[in-house]
C-alpha cells in the first residue's frame, strides 16, 4: 500500500485513511485482548503475579507455568488464528461470490471440512501406525482442508454459469451440499466408539478448549499462511466486484484469482474447523462491520478482517469460559447467539441483498 503524501489533497470518497485508522485501533485492541485473555480464567493463577515473578528474575510457580504456558497461551494463540482464519475466509468468499452473505459456514464449506475432520478422527485411529505416524497431528487439518476445498469447488461450479454467480443458487446449493455432507458425517459417526463420540460431540459444538501446543503447531501454520497471503488477492477481488468480464478488461487474470481465493478459503476454513469445530457467523459479522466502518476495499478489508476476527474470537472465548463457570460453554454457542441475530439484522436492513 502506498502512503498518501501529506501534501496531496485527499479526494472525497477515499476512505483509506479510515481503514488505516481502523487497522491501528484493531492492532492495539488485539494485543490488549490477548493479554487480558491470558489472565482470564477460573483458576487462581494471576498474570500480574507471574509477570512480577518474571521481572524480579524469580522462577514461575509451577501452577502459573502450567496454566499460563501450557493451557492458556496455546488457547489464546489458537483463538487468534481461528478467528482470523474464519473472518478472512468470509471476506474472501464474499468477494469471490460478489455477495455480502456468502460465508463458509452458511454454504456448506464448513460441513465439508467437518466431514473431513470426522473421517480423520474416526478412521484415523484405524490407520496403520506407520501411516498415522507420518501425518501425526496434521491428519485432521489436512483431511478437513481437502473436504472444504472439494466443497467450495463444487459449489462454485454449480452456482456459476457463464461467469455469473447466482446467489440464490449458491445459497440453495450450499444448503443441499451441507445436508448431504452432514448425512454422510452422521453415517461415519455411527461407526465411532464411545470415546471418539464424546470428542466429536464437544468438537462439533465448537470449542477452543482442546487447544494444546501440538495441535496449534499443526494447524496454525496453515491458517497463518492463508491469512497472510489473502491480501495479495485484494486488487483482483476489488476488480471482480465489477463482474468477471469487467475484471478481465481491467487486466485481472480472473481464473487465477478465483482459484487462489477458493484454495485460501479451503485451507483457512479446513484448518479452523479441524481444531475448533463449528464456530459460525464470524465470517459474516466481521467483514460486514468493517465495510460499514471503512468501506469494501479488499486491500484493507482482508487485513482488518483478520484482526477483528481474532479480537472477536478472543472475547467470545472469554465469555465461553466465564458465563457458566466452572463449566464451559462451547464457543460456537456464544458466536451463534451473537451472530445469528446480527445476521437477521443485516437481512432486515438490506432486503435487496439476495436478489432472489
Amino acid at each position, binding site marked *: 500500500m502506498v502512503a498518501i503524501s501529506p501534501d496531496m489533497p485527499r479526494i472525497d470518497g*477515499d476512505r483509506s485513511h479510515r481503514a488505516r485508522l481502523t487497522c491501528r485501533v484493531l492492532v492495539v485492541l488485539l494485543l490488549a485482548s490477548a493479554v487480558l485473555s491470558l489472565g482470564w480464567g477460573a483458576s487462581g493463577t494471576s498474570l500480574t503475579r507471574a509477570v512480577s515473578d518474571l521481572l524480579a528474575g524469580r522462577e514461575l510457580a509451577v501452577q502459573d507455568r502450567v496454566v499460563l504456558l501450557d493451557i492458556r497461551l496455546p488457547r489464546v494463540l489458537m483463538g487468534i488464528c481461528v478467528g482470523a482464519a474464519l473472518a478472512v475466509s468470509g471476506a474472501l468468499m464474499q468477494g469471490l461470490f460478489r455477495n455480502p452473505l456468502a460465508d463458509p459456514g452458511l454454504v456448506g464449506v464448513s460441513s465439508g471440512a467437518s466431514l473431513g475432520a470426522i473421517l480423520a478422527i474416526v478412521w484415523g485411529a484405524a490407520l496403520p501406525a506407520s501411516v498415522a505416524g507420518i501425518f501425526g497431528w496434521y491428519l485432521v487439518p489436512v483431511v478437513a482442508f481437502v473436504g472444504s476445498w472439494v466443497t467450495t469447488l463444487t459449489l462454485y461450479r454449480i452456482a456459476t454459469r457463464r461467469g455469473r454467480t447466482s446467489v440464490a443458487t449458491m445459497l440453495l446449493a450450499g444448503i443441499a451440499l451441507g445436508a448431504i455432507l452432514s448425512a454422510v458425517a452422521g453415517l461415519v459417526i455411527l461407526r465411532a466408539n464411545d470415546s471418539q463420540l464424546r470428542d466429536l460431540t464437544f468438537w462439533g459444538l465448537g470449542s477452543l478448549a482442546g487447544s494444546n501446543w501440538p495441535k496449534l503447531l499443526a494447524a496454525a501454520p496453515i491458517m497463518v499462511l492463508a491469512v497472510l497471503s489473502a491480501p495479495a488477492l485484494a*486488487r483482483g477481488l476489488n*476488480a471482480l466486484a465489477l463482474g468477471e468480464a469487467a*475484471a478481465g*478488461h481491467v*487486466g*485481472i*487474470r480472473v481464473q487465477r484469482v478465483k482459484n487462489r481465493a477458493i484454495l485460501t478459503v479451503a485451507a483457512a476454513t479446513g484448518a479452523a474447523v479441524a481444531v475448533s469445530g463449528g464456530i459460525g457467523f464470524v465470517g459474516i459479522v466481521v467483514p460486514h462491520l468493517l465495510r460499514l466502518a471503512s468501506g469494501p476495499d479488499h486491500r484493507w478489508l482482508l487485513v482488518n478482517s483478520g484482526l477483528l476476527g481474532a479480537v472477536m474470537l478472543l472475547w467470545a472465548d472469554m465469555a465461553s469460559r466465564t458465563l457458566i463457570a466452572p463449566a464451559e460453554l462451547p464457543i460456537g454457542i456464544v458466536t451463534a447467539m451473537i451472530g445469528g441475530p446480527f445476521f437477521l439484522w443485516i437481512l432486515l436492513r438490506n432486503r435487496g441483498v439476495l436478489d432472489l
Partner: protein
Amino acid sequence: MSLIAQDIAVSIGRKRILNGVSLQAEAGQFTAIVGPNGSGKTTLMRALTGELPHRGAIRLGGRDLDAFAPEDLARRRGVLPQAAALSFPFTVAEVVRIGLEARGERADALVPAALAAVDLPGFSGRHYQQLSGGEQQRVQLARVLAQVWQPVDDQGPRWLFLDEPVSSLDIAHQLTVMRLAADYARRGGGVIAVMHDLNLTALFAQKVILMGKGEVLAQGTPAEVLTDATLSHAYGCDLRVNAVPAEGIWILPQVAAG
C-alpha cells in the same frame, strides 16, 4: 493502427449468433455498430473485447488479441459494459480507481478529471449503489476513461470499446458522452461503440457498421450506410433520412397519416 476482425463466428449452444463477420476500425475515428434488436451487435462487441470464445482472428494494432497479456491489453483499451450493478457499498471515487489500481497504478489525480469529463463533478464521495442508472453508467464510463486516460501513449493509440454508452442517459448527457467519445477519437484514440440511436450515430460517427441477422449488411461512412433503402431494409420498416437542418441528419420513421 487499426482494429481488424476477420471472419468472426460465435455460436451459443447450437444457435449461430455471428456468422463470418469481418470489419475494420481505425484509431482516430468513432466507429459505430448499429442494427436492429437481435442482430448480434452486443455479441460482436463481446467477441471484439475477447470476452466471448469465437472463431476467426481479431487483431489490435497488428497484434493478435490472444497474444496480449491481460494487463497489457488493459493498458491498450478500456471496455464499458452495458449494465453494471455493484455488490458492495463502494464510493464513486473507489469505483473510478479500480481499473488503474488493478495494475498497480495510482489514480488519485485522475478521479476528479474523469468525473468532470462525464459531468459528475463533486460525485466522488457519493455511494455508487445510491445513484440513478444513468449516473451509474457515467461513473462506469469515468472508470473506463481513467483506465486509458491519454488517447495515445508511447505504444500508440488506445481504444474505448463502448456497449450502448448512452442507452440510459437523458438527452443532454447523451451529448456529453458522445462529444467525449468523439473528442477521444479526434485526439488520436480509437472508439468503437454499439449504438441504438441512429441520429447520434449520424452526428458523431466517422464509420458505421450496420448489422443484420449476425452478418454485416453494410459498412462505410455514415453517408454511405445511412440511406433510406439500406436502413429500411435492415430495420424492416420504412425510414427516411432527412438532411434538415443542414448541419445534421435526421432519420425519421414514415408513419401513414391518419
